[in-house]
C-alpha cells in the first residue's frame, strides 16, 4: 500500500520525516502557550482567555461558543500578532548576535527530537520496533549533548542585548544550566546500568529502556519511576531547572530581572524563544516518560503488545502496524501532555527559588543525592544481575 513511499530517495524521505515531526512539535509548542494560560486561569479560578473567535465559527450554534470559551483562537491571534508586529531592533545591541540568539534557541530544541523515539509498531514476528527519526545507540547522550547547546541562546541574547538585566539573566542561565546538567546525567545512569544487563549488547538508546519496562512479571512490568523513584525525582527536578521552568526560573524572573535575556526582544524573535522553551519541555517530558514512565506502554504492568492483543480480539484491524503505530504515538503524546500539565501545575503551586537557593539545591543537595543514588543502585544492580 505504501510501496511508493519507499521508492523516494532516502535523503528526501528523511527530510520529509523530519519535517513531519517538526510540523507536530511546533504547533504543540504553540498550543502549550495557550494551555499554560488556560491552566493558570483554571488553577486561579478565573475564566482565562475566552474572547477571540473567527466570525463564521461563532455562527455555529453550540460548537462555536464552546471553541471560543476554550480559547483556541487566541493561539492563532497570538501567532498572527507575532508575525505582523514591528520587529524592532534596539540601537544599542550587537546586531549579529542579537538576531542569531533566537535562531540558536530553536536549533537544539528541535534537533534533540531526532534521537527520541515517540512510538512503536509490531513487526511480522510480533516484536516491538520503536518509531523515531534516528534510533542512535547513544540516545540519551545525544539528548544531553545537543540540549546543552541551548544555553548559548540565552548567553548570546543576554550579552548582545547590551543592557543590565538581560546580562544578569544570561550569567544566571549559564551557571544554572551547567550546575543541574551534572545531577541530571548522574540520575539516569542507574537506568542504563539496569538495562545493560551482563551478556547484552551495550546501548544508551531509549528502545531498550522501554523494552525493559514492558516485560512480563511484577519486576519486569514495573516502570522505572517505581523501581528507581529517587532517580526519577532527581531527573524531574533537574528537568525543571534545565528548562528554566518555575520554581527554577531565576533566569527570567520577571520580578527582579524584568524579562531577563529576552527583555529587549519583541515580535517573532521573542516568539522563537517562547517556542524553543516549550519544545525543550516537550522533548524533556518525552525523555522522562521514556526513562521512567514506561514510554508507549499504556499502564504499568500493561505493555503495548498486550493492549494490541486484546484489541485484536475485538477487531483484527487492530494488529495492523499502522494502527499500532498511531495508538502508541497517541499514548506517548498523551503522557507527554500530562507531563506538561504537571509542569504548569507546579508553576502555580511552588514559589520561585532565590538564586542562592537554586545554587544550594543544585550543588549541595541534588548532586550528593544523585551520587549516593548511583552508588546504591550500582551495588544493588550488581547483586541482582550477578
Amino acid at each position, binding site marked *: 500500500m505504501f510501496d511508493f513511499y519507499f521508492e523516494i530517495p532516502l*535523503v528526501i524521505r528523511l527530510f520529509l520525516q523530519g519535517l513531519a515531526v517538526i510540523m507536530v512539535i511546533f504547533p504543540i509548542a504553540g498550543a502549550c502557550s495557550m494551555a499554560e494560560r488556560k491552566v493558570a486561569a483554571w488553577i486561579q479560578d478565573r475564566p482565562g482567555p475566552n474572547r477571540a473567535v473567527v466570525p463564521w465559527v461563532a455562527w455555529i450554534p453550540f460548537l462555536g461558543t464552546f471553541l471560543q470559551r476554550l480559547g483556541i483562537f487566541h493561539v492563532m491571534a497570538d501567532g498572527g500578532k507575532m508575525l505582523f508586529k514591528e520587529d524592532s531592533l534596539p540601537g544599542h545591541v550587537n546586531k549579529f*548576535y542579537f538576531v542569531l540568539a533566537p535562531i540558536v534557541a530553536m536549533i537544539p530544541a528541535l534537533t534533540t527530537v531526532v534521537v527520541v523515539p515517540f512510538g512503536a509498531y509490531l513487526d511480522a514476528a510480533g516484536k516491538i520496533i520503536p518509531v523515531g527519526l534516528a534510533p*542512535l*545507540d*547513544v540516545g540519551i*547522550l*545525544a539528548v*544531553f*549533548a*545537543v540540549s*546543552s*547547546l541551548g*544555553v*548559548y541562546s540565552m*548567553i548570546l541574547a*543576554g*550579552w548582545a542585548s547590551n543592557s543590565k538585566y538581560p*546580562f544578569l539573566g*544570561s*550569567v544566571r542561565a*549559564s*551557571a544554572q*544550566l*551547567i550546575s543541574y*546538567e551534572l545531577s541530571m546525567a548522574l540520575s539516569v545512569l542507574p537506568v542504563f546500568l539496569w538495562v545493560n544487563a551482563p551478556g547484552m*549488547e*551495550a*546501548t*544508551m538508546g531509549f528502545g531498550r529502556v522501554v523494552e525493559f519496562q514492558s516485560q512480563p512479571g511484577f519486576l519486569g512490568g514495573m516502570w522505572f519511576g517505581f523501581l528507581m523513584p529517587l532517580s526519577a525525582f532527581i531527573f524531574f527536578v533537574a528537568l525543571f531547572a534545565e528548562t528554566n521552568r518555575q520554581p527554577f526560573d531565576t533566569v527570567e524572573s520577571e520580578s527582579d530581572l524584568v524579562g531577563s535575556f529576552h527583555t529587549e526582544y519583541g515580535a517573532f524573535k521573542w516568539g522563537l524563544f517562547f517556542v524553543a522553551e516549550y519544545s525543550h519541555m516537550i522533548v524533556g517530558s518525552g525523555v522522562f516518560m521514556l526513562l521512567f514512565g514506561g514510554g508507549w506502554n499504556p499502564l504499568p504492568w500493561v505493555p503495548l503488545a498486550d493492549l494490541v492483543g486484546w484489541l485484536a480480539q475485538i477487531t483484527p484491524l487492530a494488529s495492523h502496524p499502522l494502527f499500532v503505530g498511531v495508538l502508541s504515538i497517541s499514548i506517548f503524546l498523551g503522557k507527554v501532555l500530562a507531563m506538561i500539565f504537571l509542569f504548569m501545575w507546579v508553576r502555580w503551586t511552588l514559589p520561585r527559588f532565590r538564586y*542562592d537557593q537554586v*545554587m544550594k539545591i543544585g550543588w549541595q543537595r541534588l548532586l550528593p543525592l544523585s551520587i549516593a543514588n548511583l552508588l546504591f543502585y550500582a551495588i544493588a544492580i550488581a547483586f541482582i544481575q550477578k
Partner: protein
Amino acid sequence: MASILFLLFSTLTVLCAVGVVVNKNAVNAAGCLLLCLVGVAGLFVQLDAYLLAFILLLVYAGAVVALFLFIIMLLDVQGRQSFGFSGITTFAGLMAFALLLTGLGTIAVKGHLDAPRLNRLAAEGANLKPYAQQLFTTYLLPVQIIGFLLLIAMLGVIVLSKKHATEEPAK
C-alpha cells in the same frame, strides 16, 4: 554524499579554528571555537564514532565553552587590548608551528593507516562496550592519573577562591 559531508565539516572546522586565533573580539573567538567543536563532532559522526562525537559536544561545546563565554562576559573582555607578541610568545609559537609541520610531514612521508584497523574502527567506535573495556583495562592507569590531576586542579581552585571570600560569604 559522504565526501561532500566530509568536505563541509572539515572546511567548517579549519575555518573556525583559524577564526579562533585571528579574531580580536573574544566572544567571536569563543563562538568560532564552538563551531569548530561542532565541526569536529560532525567528523566523528562520519567515522561512526557517535560516542566520541556526543561526548565532545556534551563536555566541550556544552559546558567548557559556555564557561569560557561566562568568564569573557564577566570580565568584559572586549578585545580592546590588542595582543602584542612578545619575544617569548613568538618563539613558543614558532616552535609549536615547527613541531606541527614536522608531525604533519612525518605522517605524510612515513605514516600509513592499516586498512584492517580502519575497517575495525567503525565497529569499535559505534559501540560503548569496547570503550569501557579499554578504559577499565588497558588504559586504567592513565585514566586514574588524569582523574587525580583533575581532582588536584579542583582542590587548587577551591583553595584559591576561598582566600578572597574571607570577609564576605561566597555567593
